[in-house]
């Protein structure tokens, strides 16, 4: 008992950054619960296992190389049923959400999602979830029995979890093939007209822009600044801009010299994609918007007024 199992995530033939972040979280937690860190690698390769040196052990589960929610969930459940770890950790990601929730419901294990921190005290596991668009942190007590946590991206640096050299390996069997759900193919990201990851200056618009026609306001400013226009998720989901312009968790990670955020509140999913920009300037009507915590410069105001004044001065 007391072991921490990390569900190693891989995508497109590579371990995901989240895997290394989880190994950092897991190492700190394993000390608290008095156990070791095991990576569970489902459908992975030898090359992936050779990068999991930050774990004490890797359990290899044979499965199709491309992620299938049903197959991978069944493979994970078999390992957890056999080994009974205290904490199973997955990413608060597209894959991790499928797997963690399924395990929690099927094995009746309490769960905390989107955790910034997971720790142990007095035999109980405690987790701090980042909720309500980053405006509240909620601490849960997951008790002293088996539990599941998903980890929010970017709470720790992945560097501490990158250690080459395969740890001791154990055979975790073969995941039962899914019967009702079939993986068909991977679809690579569409190439947009502009690559926002290589721009020096980005003018990014969020929900505050209000309607599709008004994106033109940002386009005009971007033209003046020789910048490209990017956007947060609600703008993309509404179909107002192509996916190739999306910054954040399900979009692209950008690091321009200057990131001008207009009407973006700064939900954790967005911050994940832009917080490493050299200079961040944010304009928002809500003085409590989380974007002002990561921005270097902030202005509380209506983005249309601000942009109009900027255009007049430029």
């Amino acid at each position: 008992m007391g072991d921490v199992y990390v569900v190693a995530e891989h995508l497109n033939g590579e371990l995901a950054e989240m895997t290394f972040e989880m190994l950092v979280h897991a190492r700190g937690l394993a000390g608290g619960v008095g156990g070791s860190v095991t990576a569970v690698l489902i459908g992975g390769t030898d090359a992936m296992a050779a990068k999991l040196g930050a774990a004490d052990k890797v359990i290899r589960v044979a499965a199709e190389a491309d992620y299938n929610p049903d197959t991978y969930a069944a493979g994970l459940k078999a390992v957890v049923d056999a080994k009974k770890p205290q904490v199973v950790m997955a990413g608060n990601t597209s894959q991790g959400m499928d797997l963690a929730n399924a395990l929690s419901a099927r094995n009746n294990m309490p769960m905390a999602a989107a955790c910034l921190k997971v720790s142990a005290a007095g035999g109980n596991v405690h987790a701090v979830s980042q909720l309500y668009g980053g405006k509240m942190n909620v601490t849960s007590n997951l008790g002293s029995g088996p539990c599941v946590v998903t980890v929010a991206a970017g709470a720790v640096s992945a560097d501490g979890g990158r250690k080459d050299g395969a740890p001791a390996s154990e055979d975790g069997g073969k995941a039962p093939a899914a019967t009702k759900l079939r993986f068909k193919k991977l679809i690579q990201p569409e190439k947009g007209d502009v690559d926002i990851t290589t721009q020096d200056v980005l003018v990014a618009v969020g929900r505050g822009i209000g309607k599709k026609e008004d994106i033109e306001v940002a386009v005009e400013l971007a033209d003046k600044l020789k910048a490209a226009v990017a956007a947060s998720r609600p703008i993309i989901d509404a179909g107002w801009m192509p996916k190739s312009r999306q910054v954040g968790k399900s979009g692209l990670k950008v690091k321009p010299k200057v990131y001008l955020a207009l009407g973006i509140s700064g939900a954790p999913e967005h911050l994940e994609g832009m917080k490493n920009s050299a200079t961040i300037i944010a304009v928002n009507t809500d003085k409590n918007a989380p974007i002002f915590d990561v921005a270097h410069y902030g202005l509380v105001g209506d983005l249309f007024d601000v942009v109009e004044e900027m255009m007049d001065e430029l």
Partner: protein
Amino acid sequence: MKIVVPLNQVPDLVEDLEIADSGKELDFEVLKMKLNEFDDHALEEALQIKESSGGEVTAVAVDGPEVDKVLFTALAKGADKAVKITGANPHADNHTQARVLAGAVGQLGADLVLVGVQSAGDRDGQLGPLLAAYLNWPGVCVVSGLKPEGGKLTFHKEYAGGLMAEFEVDLPAVMGVQAARATPRYAPVSKVRQVQTTAKIESLAAAAAGDVPAASVEKMEPPVKGAGAKMLKSAADIIQVLKEKGVV
């Protein structure tokens, strides 16, 4: 094709969030609530499927403040049926909500359940995959581009960086919808009023949630803020910064 869409209200995050005296949850009495935007996408996708390939859309919500407004609005947008689940807590954790919904879906019958991929207060997991597990149906999060054909559904699951995978699933299934194929439609107030006078909301008593794993809340608090941004006073200040950074 019978499509069930559970609808949840969440705090409007643009407003200040007040913590209740318990220090463990939001003060729902004073909060301004709105439909979870991802649920709005799930409803829109359900209506799009109905309009392109036929079917029946049932909107479901747990009884609570403003629930009639949420359900009448769904009817005004084109849902065929609206069902209010009575005797359950609309602010319960997701495991409990999933149990209650699994009972309702069992009674209503469904080929497809479309749930918003996430909600602002998802402390104990996400509703979609929990519901799928309790129904023992396939469940997939972060999906878009749904195409039903016969008893099957093809869809895209979105990963980071714009990468997606295409899957095919035998129905019934639960999908956590990221985005509908079109901007969620708007129902004018006049239309909602008209529906209120002609349509009826059905009631369904909640089945007992039974045993769910509990992770108790210890405390809720706003994050500790760092130094934060240097606050500027005007657009001219922004231009000054841009000049310093060599942009203009």
